[in-house]
């Protein structure tokens, strides 16, 4: 019992240490810049109002999907840096298809979701095939594919864009009203609604956990991640796993932009669509340690910080960029503090085992005390 308690204490200790460190470092930055430290933290950790809570949940939904996509690769030691490009290609494909409205109502939505997943999978699959057949590092390939995705989407957007009179924004045709995913109204007196897509995101999280932990495929994926040579020895095709995992990661990446596309005005993909979600996903996957619950909490933490920082400039007069610093520092300190706590835990464990062994051998009245003394 005592052992378990120690484990729990250590597990809580690691993120506590990380957050405390991040808090301290950000405070130092604020102090160095001569900004009001107390006011900034008071704003950031104040209890969000109802509409802000909704925004936090919505943003977290998007970040959660992005974190999941990245972590699928992480579980197999694949660094999919390309979630950013994959989600943009995918959401553009979904927006173009949904905007056409070939099918009625939710059939149109389903078609667009399938298209997004296929587009994301195909885009990530390029890096997977290059890695499996030519040994090209997936890090390099996905970074390059991000740039190509930007150019490709820009090129295609210019082809299909529609423009409203008097507007300077260009975007795809909006998703027809019947194909939008209605929001969940939590409180009647606020103007913002929770993305209906959040339900789908939770299901994806459950599917992720089940596939990785309860299926043969998941076992093979994790085994390959731990040791490719051992996986080969036990009859796993590493090439096939590489391509499949990248495509799976890309398919989930394809979902990242969809809550925004189907859940928020102007219901299209255009020049003002949110960007950079893929890179946030990398940080969140690290923070969540590749566990769906961890990723969800990491996504909530990041979304919380983002939302709370928005009014900083207005109410406190400090640039919200300070929160980007905090987020970056959290990722660093999490990595460092987990390692520190792991080492500390290992040392505690060694000491405990040694003490127990000593006790047991003493109690058993070892018939060969000379050996024991020699061992000392």
């Amino acid at each position, binding site marked *: 019992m005592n052992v378990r308690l120690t484990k729990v204490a250590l597990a809580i200790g690691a*993120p506590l240490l990380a957050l405390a460190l991040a808090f301290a470092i950000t405070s130092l930055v604020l102090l160095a810049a001569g900004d009001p430290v107390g006011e900034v933290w008071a704003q950031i950790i104040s209890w969000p109002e109802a509409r802000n809570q909704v*925004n936090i949940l919505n943003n977290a939904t998007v970040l959660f999907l992005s974190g999941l996509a990245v972590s699928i690769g992480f579980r197999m030691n694949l660094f999919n840096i390309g979630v950013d490009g994959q989600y943009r290609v995918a959401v553009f494909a979904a927006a173009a298809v949904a905007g056409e409205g070939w099918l009625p109502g939710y059939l149109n939505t389903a078609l667009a979701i399938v298209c997004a997943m296929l587009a994301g999978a195909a885009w990530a699959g390029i890096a997977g095939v290059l890695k499996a057949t030519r040994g090209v590092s997936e890090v390099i390939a996905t970074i390059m594919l991000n740039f190509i995705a930007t150019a490709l989407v820009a090129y295609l957007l*210019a082809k299909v864009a529609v423009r409203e009179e008097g507007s300077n924004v260009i975007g795809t045709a909006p998703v027809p009203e019947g194909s939008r995913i209605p929001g969940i109204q939590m409180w009647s007196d606020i103007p913002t609604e929770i993305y209906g897509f959040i339900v789908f995101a939770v299901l994806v999280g459950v599917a992720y956990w089940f596939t990785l932990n309860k299926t043969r495929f998941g076992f093979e994926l994790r085994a390959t991640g731990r040791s490719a040579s051992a996986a080969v020895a036990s009859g796993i095709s590493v090439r096939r796993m590489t391509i499949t995992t990248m495509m799976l990661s890309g398919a989930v990446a394809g979902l990242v932009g969809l809550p925004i596309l189907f859940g928020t005005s102007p219901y299209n993909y255009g020049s003002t669509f949110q960007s950079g979600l893929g890179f946030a996903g990398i940080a969140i996957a690290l923070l969540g340690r590749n566990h769906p619950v961890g990723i969800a909490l990491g996504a909530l933490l990041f979304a919380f910080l983002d939302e709370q920082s928005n009014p900083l400039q207005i109410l406190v007069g400090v640039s919200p960029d300070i929160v980007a610093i905090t987020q970056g520092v959290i990722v660093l300190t999490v990595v460092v503090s987990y390692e520190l706590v792991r080492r500390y835990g290992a040392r505690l464990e060694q000491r405990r085992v040694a003490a127990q062994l000593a006790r047991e051998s003493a109690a058993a009245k070892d018939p060969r005390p000379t050996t024991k003394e020699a061992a000392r």
Partner: protein
Amino acid sequence: MRRTKFTAALAVSILALAGCGSSGSDDGDSGSGNGGGGGEGDIKVGLAYDVGGRGDQSFNDSAAAGLDRAADEFSISSDESEAEDGEAEAAREERLRTFAENDYDVVIAVGFAYATAIGAVAPDYPEVEFAVIDDSTNEFDNVTNLVFAEEQGSFLVGAAAALTSESNHVGFVGGVQTPLIEKFEAGYTAGAQAVNPDVQVDVTYLTQPPDFTGFADPARGKTAAQGMFDAGADVVYHAAGGSGGGVFEAAQEAGGRAIGVDSDQYNTADEAVRDVILTSMLKNVDVAVYEFLSDIDAGEDPSGTVTYDLEADGVGYSTSGDFLTPEVIEQLEGFKEQIIAGEIEVPTAP
């Protein structure tokens, strides 16, 4: 090991939530923390910038100048907030809501990126006066759309370019190929052709949306302009925000001329390249912001779309540096009168 990970992650969340709960709600006096901006006044103005914010030497700075002028003359207190690159629609909306919720009387959104957010927020706060620059899609009683006839000002600098060019060959460098920047191009080409129907106009855009780096990439601007000068152009006009610095450099190295945009860039550009700036197309965002605030100060209730064209002095050309000869200026004034009188209709799309 897996359990450890899980418990760890759980702990992160507990902490995060505990963090939320601990400090309780102190939003009662949240308005008291005042940021940058002016002193105390009767009218509280919130200014939401586009990416770049105050200090971008372009569009946002022009809006800031209008606010500063109004703050000097009227009893106004102001706070400002700027957009982050690639932010969520919800973040723009929330920025406007934060102003409205904290009893700001006037909220000015700088840039067409705010169009959707204004449409979502304005109806919820009928007592707040909103203004949005460069967009005219919203029609509410409390929203004023401030738009500009960029094509008219561009027409005049296009004419100036063609009148100054010795090779009958001029160029246009656009930052990002959006409908807004295409207005600049259309006016410029029309102006050059009005002077000389045979003039050759080279056109290039640095990036395509949604890649907006074309407004902040001097190296790319320089390469694009160099290509035009090498091909024989001797005057190049840029509508490329921060990338314009590269166009000026290219003009200096090639011994050609460049035309600035938005503000009088002879006064704001790097001193080393000022002498190549033939003129600048002025887009007086400051005038629009100032006049809007002036109306509010006078107790009026502005709404609808206000177009700042040549007649309203919302656009124009600069003569700093005296590079435009009196003959050229005379001709430009002639075009200006014709445009105001409606005798010349300037196209808004290429």
